[in-house]
């Protein structure tokens, strides 16, 4: 659970699409089950049914008003044209300004209403999307604390984090924009086709013919560019890989005079990248002009055809103008719909991840009738405990032992022996496969988790503190503690001594990486936190392994304070602690191979004795074990 847990690095890279080309090229994320996810999303949305229906109606109306525009505007042009022609020919009244004025005012009204409707729907939809986003995040946050730790063995922090932010963001953005855009685009396409047909079916057919032409041209380019995009992605990956490796191993590269080779290799990859980069960039850059060209061809065809029809007096000049505008309006929403479909796919994929997370199995339900009012002393007993993180792979086979209150138990063994596992079982982070663990005579499963954990205090090697003041962090041990109690804990843990020398004392805000206090100081704070919690049972897991000698002495003193009158489990590092332990559990490969006190174990001359002779060294603690 330390920062450099390799699992966090395994998060799949989210490509922002270095090509930057149109959406068709990148982000080919597909949900596993589009329909089911959609159903869930709709269910989530259905709470805001009324609002969403209003939004849809407004969006459609707004688009509809917009579509009317060109046609009405065309009427003005026709009026102008006819009036003018009449004037030239010397027949008729000339231009009728009253009717033009009225039409313009009518149009203005139309545009203003369209704008108001569009804004209102946007306003409402933002609200809905904010509510849904908030709720999803909230649910995820609640979920995090209700999932068994087991879940996090296979899912990295990065993945969960990405659901809270990226995935929820994607959903939010789609709700905010794409959903109503879809309505608007659909209305526009249908409306425009209708309007076009109302002007001239022949011209409409011509305009519609342009679509497949443009689609096939685009498809051709996409097909061509796809391979270069792939290559570009690959080589970007290669460049990244090489750069990461060389920078990460910089000293080794230098020590072995490897710079030249490294640069040579880099230049090789870089050149290939250049080649695929400009090609993919160029090909994606061709999309726009091709689309524009096809659009212009349409424009020309309409102009010619319209001109011809106007000459033949089949349609009016204003209709040509309107039609041209329709054609221009037409291609855009079609492209948009294609794009939105793509976005929907991505959204569904994001939503799927979020729902998947929310539907994960939670911790085994609490017992319906938890034992209450037990007098807690700190007696612990393991009875034939069997456990494996993976039920196929049992690591603790059959463990029994009885610990009396106030005793000090040391757990020792080589890395990977399963020492931390014992602790995790005790605190019910994991449940035993068979056998039982008793606390003060009751199976720990018979307590509510809350009550059970109230009995424990923990100090881990991984000094987890949060981005708050030192005071807040100590208080974290018992949130309702009084100031005096916090102070007492701080003193007992030797925190007080160094805090006084810090710039803001107890109000010093720990920074995000908690690097503004030293490792040893952090450890002392965690000890203070545990002291404040005043637990019956104390768990110390390699609490001093990453501090230097001097701090260690202080921590040692603090821990001795802490262990007074409590049952304590010490996953050990320090020989003196172990030697004085009432009971030493020697673990190897998941099983207790020996138990007894120091003297007894040495006399037995078994595994412990061997370990002890080899100086009892085991600095290297696999981080995974702490999860």
């Amino acid at each position, binding site marked *: 659970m330390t920062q450099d847990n390799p699992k966090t690095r395994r998060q799949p890279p989210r490509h922002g699409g270095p090509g930057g080309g149109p959406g068709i090229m990148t982000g080919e994320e597909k949900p596993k089950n589009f329909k089911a996810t959609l159903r869930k999303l709709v269910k989530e949305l259905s709470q805001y049914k009324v609002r969403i229906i209003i939004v849809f109606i407004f969006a459609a109306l707004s688009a509809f008003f917009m579509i009317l525009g060109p046609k009405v505007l065309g009427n003005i*042009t026709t009026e102008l*044209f006819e009036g003018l022609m009449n004037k030239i020919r010397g027949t008729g009244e000339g231009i009728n300004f009253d009717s033009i004025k009225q039409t313009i005012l009518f149009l203005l009204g139309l545009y203003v209403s369209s704008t108001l409707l569009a804004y209102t729907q946007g306003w409402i939809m933002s609200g809905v999307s904010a509510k849904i986003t908030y709720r999803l995040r909230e649910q995820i946050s609640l979920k995090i604390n209700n999932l068994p730790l087991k879940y996090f063995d296979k899912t990295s922090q990065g993945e969960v984090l990405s659901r809270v932010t990226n995935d929820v963001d994607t959903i939010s953005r789609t709700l905010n924009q794409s959903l109503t855009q879809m309505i608007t685009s659909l209305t526009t396409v249908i409306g425009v086709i209708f309007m076009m047909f109302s002007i001239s079916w022949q011209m409409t057919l011509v305009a519609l013919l342009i679509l497949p032409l443009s689609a096939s041209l685009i498809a051709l380019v996409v097909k061509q560019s796809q391979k270069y995009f792939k290559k570009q992605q690959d080589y970007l990956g290669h460049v990244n*890989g090489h750069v990461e490796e060389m920078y990460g191993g910089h000293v080794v590269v230098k020590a072995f005079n490897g710079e030249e080779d490294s640069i040579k290799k880099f230049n090789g990859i870089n050149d290939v990248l250049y080649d695929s980069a400009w090609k993919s960039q160029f090909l994606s850059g061709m999309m726009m002009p091709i689309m524009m060209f096809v659009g212009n061809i349409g424009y020309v065809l309409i102009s010619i055809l319209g001109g011809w029809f106007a000459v033949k007096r089949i349609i009016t000049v204003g209709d040509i103008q309107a039609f041209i505008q329709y054609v221009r309006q037409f291609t855009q929403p079609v492209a948009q719909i294609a794009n939105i479909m793509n976005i929907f796919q991505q959204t569904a994929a994001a939503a799927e991840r979020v729902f998947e997370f929310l539907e994960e199995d939670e911790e085994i339900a609490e017992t319906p009738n938890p034992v209450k009012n037990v007098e807690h002393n700190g007696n612990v007993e393991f009875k034939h405990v069997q456990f494996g993180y993976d039920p196929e792979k049992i690591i603790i086979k059959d463990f029994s032992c009885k610990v009396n209150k106030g005793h000090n138990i040391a757990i020792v063994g080589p890395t990977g022996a399963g020492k931390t596992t014992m602790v995790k079982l005790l605190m019910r982070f994991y449940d035993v496969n068979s056998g039982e663990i008793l606390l003060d005579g009751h199976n720990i499963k018979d307590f509510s988790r809350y009550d059970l954990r109230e009995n424990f205090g923990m100090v881990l090697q991984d000094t987890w503190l949060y981005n708050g003041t030192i005071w807040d962090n100590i208080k974290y041990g018992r949130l309702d503690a009084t100031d005096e109690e916090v102070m007492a804990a701080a003193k007992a843990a030797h925190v007080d001594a160094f805090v006084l020398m810090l710039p803001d004392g107890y109000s010093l805000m720990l920074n995000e990486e908690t690097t503004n206090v030293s490792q040893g100081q952090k450890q002392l704070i965690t000890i203070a936190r545990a002291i404040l919690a005043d637990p019956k049972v104390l768990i110390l897991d390699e609490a001093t392994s990453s501090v230097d000698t001097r701090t260690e002495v202080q921590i040692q003193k603090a821990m001795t304070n802490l262990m007074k009158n409590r049952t304590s489990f010490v996953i050990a590092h320090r020989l003196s602690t172990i030697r004085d332990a009432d009971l030493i559990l020697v673990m190897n490969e998941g099983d207790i191979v020996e138990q007894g006190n120091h003297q007894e174990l040495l006399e037995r001359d078994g595994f412990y004795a061997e370990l002890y002779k080899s100086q009892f060294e085991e600095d290297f603690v696999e981080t995974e074990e702490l999860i």
Partner: protein
Amino acid sequence: MLKLIGYLKPYTVFILVAIALLFVQALSELALPDYMSRIVNVGIQQAGIEDALPQAISQETFDHVSLFMSRENKEAILGYYELITKDSSNYQDYLKSYPALETEPVYVLVNDDIGKNEELKLTFGKALMAYSGIKSGGALGNENFAPPSGFTIPEGADPFKMMQLIPESVRLQMLTEMDKMVDVLGESMIKQSSVLVVKEEYQKLGMDTDRIQSRYVFRTGLMMVLMALLSTAATILVAFIASKIAAAVARNLRKDVFTKIENFSNVEFAKFSTASLITRTTNDITQIQLVIVMIIRMVFYAPIMGVGGVIRALEKSVSMSWIIGLAVIILLGMIGIVFAIALPKFKKIQKLIDRLNLVTRENLSGLMVVRAFNTQKFEEKRFREANEDVTKTNLFVNRVMVSMMPIMMLVMNGIVLLIVWVGAKQIAESSLQVGDMMAYIQYAMQIIISFLMLTMIFIFIPRASVSANRVHEVLKVDPEITDPDNPKQFPKDFKGEVEFRNVCYRFPGAEENILNHISFTAKPGETTAIIGSTGSGKSTLLNMIPRFYDVCDGQVLLDGVDIRAVKQHDLRDHIGYVPQKGVLFSGTIESNLKYADDDATLEEIKKAAEIAQATEFIETKEEKYQTPISQGGINVSGGQKQRLSIARALLKRPEIFLFDDSFSALDFKTDAALRRKLKQETGDSTLIIVGQRIATIKNAEQILVLDEGKLVGKGRHDELMKSCQTYQEIARSQLSEEELS
């Protein structure tokens, strides 16, 4: 941004070509509405007849028309025409075009130069109008065209015969008065009216006027297609040039940055951090590449298009230019307001999202602690607060941003309406044609869009400029550690004696020295161990030998030669370095070991692996030495990485071995076995070991004890146990009393 401009220099010519092409693109793009307006104005309105200049006119008509012009003008006009009669030699040629030739002689235009004589054309046009007015019996759609007062035409009389009777001087006087009235109408009206006369005359001559019209429409259409093609071709060429330049600049930048960083010392690495250097080499440069494409294709294009649009629009109508100005001001103002409101919030949102991330990350990384202390509710509250902040601010920004599109559309449409309203008035006054108004609308849109394009750019450029600055920061660094100008050579029989003479070191920007006046000598064939608590400077000291850091004061000497006097390459040739964290590269076990010596044989490799105690685990792997190592060596454990790193250093067979806490991930047994073997095999080499375990270093010939950058003890284990307090403290914390005694 500008700091990297030098990278564009080699491509100046290409950029200029691209700009020229952008002009072509803009001009042909702008030509389209003009052609469309011609289809409306000439093709439809004027029946495809461009000019009031008939290609042919019957002798009779011309005689009548010429009554309305002076003799000089008449003769001037006739100079361009040829009278074709049945007797003319080219009679047959013209008969097809002008079937009326059969019945009457026709003047045919033979010299197109008349088109250049605007005055003559106007005179002709006016005469045609007057002729048409008289012919149709006075009214030419307008009372202005009635014959002058006092000149009444008797019913049924041929007005032209009568006109001919009027003496020329009187007729000319009449003409001048008519001119005055006609001039009021404006040229446009004269042209449009006289074109109708020409059309009538064409019909009289038996010409196919429909064909003239359709041919005009198609010809103009064809020109439009050509223009569209030209514009597309130009755009594609620009895209080609832009992507090539951008990719090339990116390649060169990447190359320079990478080469630069490969020559960085640890000081520079620490200054930037590895992660940041990686981003600078990859993402930042990709950003720059994208922006270069955008700059060439959009930033250069928008002004060309905008200015071109303005010029074209002015051609159509000067008097409406204020509308475009108004539109641009309104839109820019609006965008300005929206961004002024939203931008600060945008920055805030990023902070709030970071906060949300932080809270979530903390909850995730502290799962066990959270549960152990039963503080789930507290965490949830923290999350809720962060979530509320993000949601609220997001909602505000969204609601502001959501207004952009509708308002923009409203402004655009409002502009169109304004143009139509103002344009309608001008059309009524004949100072504008309908097609021109339609084109004007399109120009207005193009101008507005160019401005919008430019504002978009202001969003992208700052982002790229951040990237450019970050890249530039790397490029401008002068590496602290460089080779000397006149490098010395190590002696031929290099032994590997390392001597520190009064060495001090201070990290850049630090207030205190991390190493203070360190002096010692590490002899060949001996092991020198360095021990001390965290931060005592032991790693720094070791890293000074391969010149990863340079001394601030004092000297590091190898066989008496100051290491700063030789080339880094030569220096490092003699050193086998094993870092604290085993660093492996992707490849195979073999390729990693061969990193030290490309020519190493399999025997040598096996030998090195054996000394490093790596054989045992390598042999258990299915592919042995060909076992793939993934990037970062994730698929081997920490201890295995260290052993492979040691084997790699051994394969180099250097005179000096440096172990930077390189045994920390090994269990005691392996550690002990390795050190025993190492001692045997390295023979005369100088071994310098940084360690934390007393056990690891106990047997060293010389132990250096560091405390807060000072050398507080030097000697063997036994000596130090007696004399050095720091050493005793360390030892006590690690060994039991029995072992100490």
